[in-house]
């Protein structure tokens, strides 16, 4: 016969009380939503970590279509920022992965943003068409955004949390569509916009 847990608990509590002992019943809820990204989680993708109070440099730039994109306007969303160029061989395999993440997570709050370093608008447009990229590509014709971010090689990518704080950086290519990367993005998407405290 299978005993009903509630009845078992009731009998156990009655026995403890009858024995003259106090009972502390702790009711545990589900795991907290918005658990911070841990250093261990970032290590799975070999990402560099920022202290929790690090703010990435602000910037705004134009897409080849003439639309202005500003980092400040993305507050409340998780941002995956990648610096790239068409001649960068290691950037190319990453692009379909970024597109995959964009299609999968954009509705839930992820913005994938490609910063093209020092190339012509038309070249960027052709590259996007060839690789069927639909996530926004921002032009950095003078390399000013790259300088602010300290980028000296490509690809270099940054993860920014919903609260606008820098979370991690990747110097060199990563498997951005892998389960490890998705796990990190899932945790960041679950974080509240006003996150505080240590990561």
């Amino acid at each position: 016969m299978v005993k009903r847990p509630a009845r078992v608990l009731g009998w156990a509590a009655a026995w403890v009380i009858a024995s003259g002992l106090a009972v502390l019943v702790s009711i545990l809820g589900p795991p907290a939503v918005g658990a911070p990204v841990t250093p261990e989680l970032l290590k799975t993708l070999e990402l560099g970590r920022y202290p929790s109070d690090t703010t990435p440099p602000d910037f705004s730039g134009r897409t080849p279509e003439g639309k202005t994109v500003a980092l400040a306007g993305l507050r409340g969303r998780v941002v995956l920022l990648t610096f790239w160029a068409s001649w960068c061989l290691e950037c190319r395999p990453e692009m379909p992965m970024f597109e995959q993440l964009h299609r999968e997570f954009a509705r839930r709050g992820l913005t994938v943003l490609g910063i093209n370093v020092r190339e012509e608008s038309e070249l960027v447009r052709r590259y996007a068409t060839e690789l069927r990229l639909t996530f926004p590509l921002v032009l950095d014709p003078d390399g000013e955004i790259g300088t602010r971010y300290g980028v000296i090689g490509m690809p270099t990518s940054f993860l920014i949390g919903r609260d606008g704080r820098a979370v991690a950086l990747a110097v060199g290519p990563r498997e951005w569509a892998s389960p490890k990367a998705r796990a990190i993005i899932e945790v960041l998407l679950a974080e509240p916009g006003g996150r505080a405290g240590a990561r």
Partner: protein
Amino acid sequence: MANLSARKADYSKFQELNVQNLGIAASNPFSQKTLADSLKLPYPLLSDFPGLKTIRSYGVLSEQRAITARRSFFLVDQQGIVRGKWLPDVEAAVFPSETVLEAVRALAKK
């Protein structure tokens, strides 16, 4: 950048002589971290921006085209006294670590 990498290549030589390398620039801390991670530097890069206090006090602030620190090297002893100062030409090739290491060895003999 070439100088940062040169100090990285000779890092163990500096360590043997108990010298701590520090890089200081008029750049924001965010870009410093990207740079340090990109070059995999074994020593810290410090940001003196926007205050520029250290760069100014060492007399190497350059405001010609943009606000930067002039390429310069200072050897500071354990008492905080500047024992060596090198201001190579901007166009010069990589400043050799051996110049500083020799100065450290000479100091140790005194």
